[in-house]
């Protein structure tokens, strides 16, 4: 049976497709770019939501993975465009401007970073976990600023968007299609993950750690696995985001980015599979509409976020579809 929530989910994912298609037929490339940005930011939120919604891990350091994905794109593409080998040993590697390879590197590197950060941070819980993930994110931020080989504080630009076999990625609608398909795949994966034995055990570890331990599972391992998957998806979003802007800078690693990714999840509704889609779309809409009215639009964002946290805990989806949870 279709619940109100799943109906809403289908409506959202359809709207995210129809709006740019309409913009394409009306020749409004800017709106396609906004939709692409929304899809990519939603993907970052889908990643965070696996740790946050499913695992109950309040990570304030996901900008680390978003930025690592971005820098993976920037570094590989910069080397490929400048014809400077990235390394000569054990084999000659000249960087790459092929998206699939860049994505693979982004996913692997951000998963590795999530493994290290997660293994250290998950030794603690509660408020310590929040502060420690924040601190590790900030560590990478300062490292990127002082890393002068790849632009330091100024960041790193590439001239041409990277290539995807068979598509013209410079055409906004084709690049949107790439981001949209990846978002749909990630949503499908997240839904399967939540319903899998692993997802159920993870949700159980969030709700009652002792019982999960009593049946012979190790909450630490479950959470670490979730944190790594979550970081990898957010890293992939980072590579796409950098490709969208053809630019990567330490800002992608700053803790404001972590906060914003969390805002996408919360605006939509915590623990709801499609929450990040609603949240990212709403965020882009607010940025575009309010940003046009006032330079200080983030005041309104702050007030809205405060009101949602204090009075409307289910977020946007909760307000429309009622209090039932997608998984929980």
């Amino acid at each position: 049976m279709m619940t109100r929530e799943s109906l809403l989910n289908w409506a959202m994912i359809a709207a995210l497709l129809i709006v740019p298609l309409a913009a394409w037929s009306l020749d409004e490339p800017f709106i396609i770019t906004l939709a692409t940005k929304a899809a990519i930011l939603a993907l970052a939120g889908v990643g965070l939501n696996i740790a946050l919604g499913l695992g109950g891990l309040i990570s304030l350091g996901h900008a680390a993975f978003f930025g690592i994905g971005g820098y993976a794109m920037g570094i590989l593409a910069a080397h490929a465009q400048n014809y400077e080998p990235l390394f000569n040993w054990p084999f000659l590697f000249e960087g790459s401007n092929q998206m699939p390879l860049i994505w693979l590197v982004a996913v692997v590197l951000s998963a590795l970073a999530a493994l290290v950060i997660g293994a250290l941070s998950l030794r603690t819980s509660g408020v310590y976990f929040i502060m420690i993930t924040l601190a590790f994110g900030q560590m990478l931020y300062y490292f990127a600023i002082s890393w002068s080989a790849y632009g330091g504080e100024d960041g790193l630009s590439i001239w041409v968007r990277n290539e995807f076999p068979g598509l013209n990625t410079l055409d906004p609608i084709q690049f949107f299609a790439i981001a949209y398909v990846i978002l749909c795949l990630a949503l499908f994966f997240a839904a399967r993950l939540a319903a899998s034995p692993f997802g159920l055990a993870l949700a159980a570890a969030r709700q009652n750690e002792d019982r999960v331990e009593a049946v012979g599972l190790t909450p630490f391992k479950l959470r670490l696995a979730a944190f790594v998957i979550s970081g990898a998806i957010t890293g992939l979003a980072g590579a796409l985001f950098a490709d969208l802007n053809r630019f990567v800078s330490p800002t992608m690693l700053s803790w404001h980015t972590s906060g914003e990714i969390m805002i996408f999840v919360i605006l939509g509704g915590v623990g709801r599979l499609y929450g990040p889609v609603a949240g990212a779309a709403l965020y882009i809409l607010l940025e575009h509409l309010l940003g046009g009215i006032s330079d200080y639009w983030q005041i309104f964002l702050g007030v809205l976020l405060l009101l949602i946290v204090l009075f409307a805990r289910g977020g946007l989806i909760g307000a429309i579809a009622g209090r039932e949870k997608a998984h929980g």
Partner: protein
Amino acid sequence: MTYILVLEQILNGLQLGVMLFLMAAGLTLVFGVMGLINLAHGSLYMVGAFAAAAVAGWTGSFLLALIASLAAAAAAGALMELVVIRRLYRRDHLDQVLATFALILIFSEGTRWLFGSFPLFLDVPAYLSGPVSLPGGIEYPLYRLTIILIGLAIAAGLFLLIAKTRIGIQIRAGEADREMIAALGVDISKLYTLVFALGAALAGLAGALVGAIQSVQVGMGEPVLILAFVVIVIGGIGSIKGALAGALLVGLTDTLGGVFLPQLFALFMEPASAASAGASLASMLIYILMAAILLVRPSGLYGGSA
């Protein structure tokens, strides 16, 4: 590398350390007593600095500016507690993180709207500027020395307040058992507002004192806030003693690492790459320190159970 340079850098590290203590003390008290994580603590630091810069601009008096920073930050803190924070005590940490992140957006953009994006400047008064000769032949800026002394005096005052006064007893009792002290007739919500305003005032004072060395601008509180989190993680949440130890450790590590790591690397690397590798590692040093301490003591140096 002379011993005078080393001593100077140790003093600089102490100066950073006591400022971090002023930030961390409020954060750790608020967490210890109310169980609340407050990301907007850095905004109170910013409020203090802006209040000081504005009052110094009107009156020309640095002392009045410092008083203004204390008053403005305490008032902003009390208001924040009454309007928003007290609704969050019974909520989970996620709600606290989000609501206080929202407060940062409101405070930062609000300040930008009031004062503009350009940094303000707060001058060190004439009677505190210039160097002072210390025993051992060290010339050290008088203002920085004053900061160290003010910080240490406040640390001592805070320990006395918590160990010896009635308020201090209530604060410690509040950390141990909230329901019980409410049952004993202490007005718990008044106590919470007081503790929050006290922490806010300390953050505001730190902002004003540092504002005279650096510039006063929107977002200035956030790097300090994150350093203060590192301090608290190292020291143990809820412990004032841990906050002091952690603050001095972080202040010294960050300052000494930034100066001496590039020189250390220069012993076995080319100068240019030594400088950049040293600077990169130095920027990460305190986080590596934090990770190392977490491996040994997951709840910090002076922390009980997290």
